[in-house]
Every structure is written in C-alpha cells, then in structure tokens.
C-alpha cells in the first residue's frame, strides 16, 4: 500500500505536470480514502464511494494548496474529513461516527471500488456549455488543449480555465446533491 513518501512524491511530480504520476497519486489516494470512508460509513458502501469521488475531485482541484513542507497525509485527510463532515451535515446523519484523528484502520484488500450512488457523468452534463465542452474534448476524448482550442475556436488559456472552473463546479454540484 502507498506510504507517505511515495504518495508525496507522486503528487509533487503531478504538480510539476507529470500525468502518469498524478494518475498514480489519485489511484493510491482513492484506495486510502475508500478505507477511510468505509470505516466511518459501515454498510453504506455506495455513500462511501460517492465521498471517495468527491474527495478525489477536491484533492485534484485544490492540489495547489499542498505545501511540500508539511505531511501529505495530513493535508489529504484534512480534506477527506472536511468532505465527510459536509456529507454528515447534508444527510443530517446523526449516527455515531468518529470525526477525530486520521486513523484509517486496516486497509481491507476486499474493499473494491463499489459503484457510486451518484453518476458523475450525469453531473458533468449539467455544467455550463463552455465548461462541459472543454472537459469533454480534453478529459473524455483525450484531445490536447491545442486541438480543443482549434475545435471550439476558443483560446488555449480559455480552454484551461474552462476545465478548471468546470471541475470546481462539478465539486460544488457533488456537494449540493441531496443525500438520500
């Protein structure tokens, strides 16, 4: 399982623009987050997976707030804990849940990714047209920023900003959803 040093190295390489490293970071983070949320939401695997996805988007869009002088896991679990408290607020869930500490418990290898309750693809569809198009071209159809700019007639920086804003909007939509 990923440890602090490994995770930190991947994130820092990702921050420098290394796509594979960033993917690796998100994948490892997803595993840890899954344990973290499943241990707090026993029997609610789908809610836990929603939170994993929500937190991944949060980690991604706020990755610039990580300061290399501080432990990566403290940063990551602070965000996870924040999303978890936000979830509890949303769901008015009053069951016992441990909020303090970042002890994730044992990582159970049987924790496979279950289906999330919400479908991110549906939420992406709700984004404003420009943001949606930019994300679709670059993120879903794997086109380069330049190609996307040419295809839409927008400037390259416009495409980048639209993607960035779109992902932030996505995170907000994830947080607004009514938990059932």
């Amino acid at each position, binding site marked *: 399982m990923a440890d602090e040093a490994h995770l930190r190295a991947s994130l820092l390489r*990702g*921050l420098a623009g290394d796509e594979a490293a960033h*993917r690796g970071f998100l994948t490892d983070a997803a595993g840890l987050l899954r344990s973290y949320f499943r241990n707090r939401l026993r029997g609610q695997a789908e809610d836990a997976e929603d939170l994993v*996805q929500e937190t991944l988007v949060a980690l991604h869009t706020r990755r610039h707030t990580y300061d290399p002088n501080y432990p990566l896991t403290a*940063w990551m679990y602070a965000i996870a804990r*924040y999303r978890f408290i*936000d979830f509890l607020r949303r769901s008015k869930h009053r069951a016992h849940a441990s909020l303090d500490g970042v002890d994730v418990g044992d990582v159970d290898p049987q924790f496979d990714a279950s289906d*999330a309750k919400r479908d991110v693809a549906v939420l992406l569809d709700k984004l404003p047209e420009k943001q949606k198009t930019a994300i679709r071209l670059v*993120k879903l159809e794997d086109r380069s920023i330049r190609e996307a700019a040419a295809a839409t007639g927008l400037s390259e920086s416009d495409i980048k900003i639209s993607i960035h804003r779109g*992902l932030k909007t996505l995170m907000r939509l994830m947080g607004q959803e009514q938990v059932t």
Partner: protein
Amino acid sequence: MKTERLIDVLAQGVEATERPRWRVNLAITLLVGLVVGVAAVVIGLGVRPDIDTARMPVMMKVMFSGLAAAVVLPLALRLMKPGRPLGWRVGAVVLFVALCGACVVVALMGEEPGDRLAMWMGNGVLWCVVLIPVLAAPTAALLVWLMRAFAPTRLTLAGAAIGALSGGVGAMAYAMYCPVDSAAFVMTWYVLGIALSAAIGSLVGAKFLRW
C-alpha cells in the same frame, strides 16, 4: 461513473500548476478592505473634528488595531490551507488578549478611584463595539472570497480568524472617528469589538466558506 474512470478524467492532460501568489493577493485584500473601511468612516461617520491636534492618539489607536490584526494573521494563514498544525498561533492570540487585560488594569489603577469608571467607559462604548464589526465587513467579505480559493477545512475556526483579522482592520478605520483616547478604553472596547467580529465570523463561517 466508476471511480477509475473519474481518476482518468481528472488526470488526463494535467499540466504543471502555478504556485498561487497568495501573499500578494492577501496584501491587496487587506489594503482594499482598509481603504473601503476608511472611506466609510470619512463618508458615513466623519473623521473626528480635532484630527489636527489629535494625530498622536489616533496614530496610537491605529497602531494598536494593526497590532491586533497582525497577531491574528498567522492563525488565519494556517487555517487557509488543509492539514496545518496551529501550534503557537492560538497561544499568541490568547496572550495578546491577556496582555491587553493586564494593561487595562494597570492603566486604571493609576487613575483616581473616582475617575476610573469614566476612563474605562469613555462615552461611546456601544458605538465602538458595534461599529468595528460593521467597518470590518468589507474586509471580511474580501477575505472569505480569497480564502475560498484555497481549501479551509475548519470552517468555524477559519470564520473566527477572518472575523478577528478583519475586525483589526475595521478598528484601524474606526480609530479615525473614535473620540475617546484613553488606553484603558481602547484596549477593552476595541478588543471586544474585534472579538465580536470574530464571534460573528465563527457563526457564519461555515455558511460562507463552504467549498
């Protein structure tokens, strides 16, 4: 969408991120907030009429308020980003308030017993405590906007820190108007005005800082 697919989407075409220039942004935010606060005093309340002869005490009050803001600043910065230990920064604020309390007692002890109450209460207690949060509001709004671009995770504390920080800035503007100059008055009621800003901030922090 499966989580694996989401990860692909997020990682796809990722580019080097720029380090946010938060120091510059923060400095601009505080400066703009102060200018708006001072403008509100000049237009809404009117600068105290004896400003020419009272430069010294006004200066002292502005510096005291600025000091209060500076004491809260490290704490506010810590709360801006996730997972940072607060350490001595809370202690600094507590120490500052305790020192103010001690100074108030010492200052009042030096007065004639009959004058103490008048020195302490001045004649504008209520206005002072109420107007400092009002004048802090523009700075607070700007700070919330700035902080949301980062990722505060302890919203109540972050709200309180923003409230106190902008309260200090508001008090700097208020000093232009405030007609009372006694140290005991300023150290009590300015600090309470700033504390009220912090309390309001902690109550509304979770609402406005949510991201």
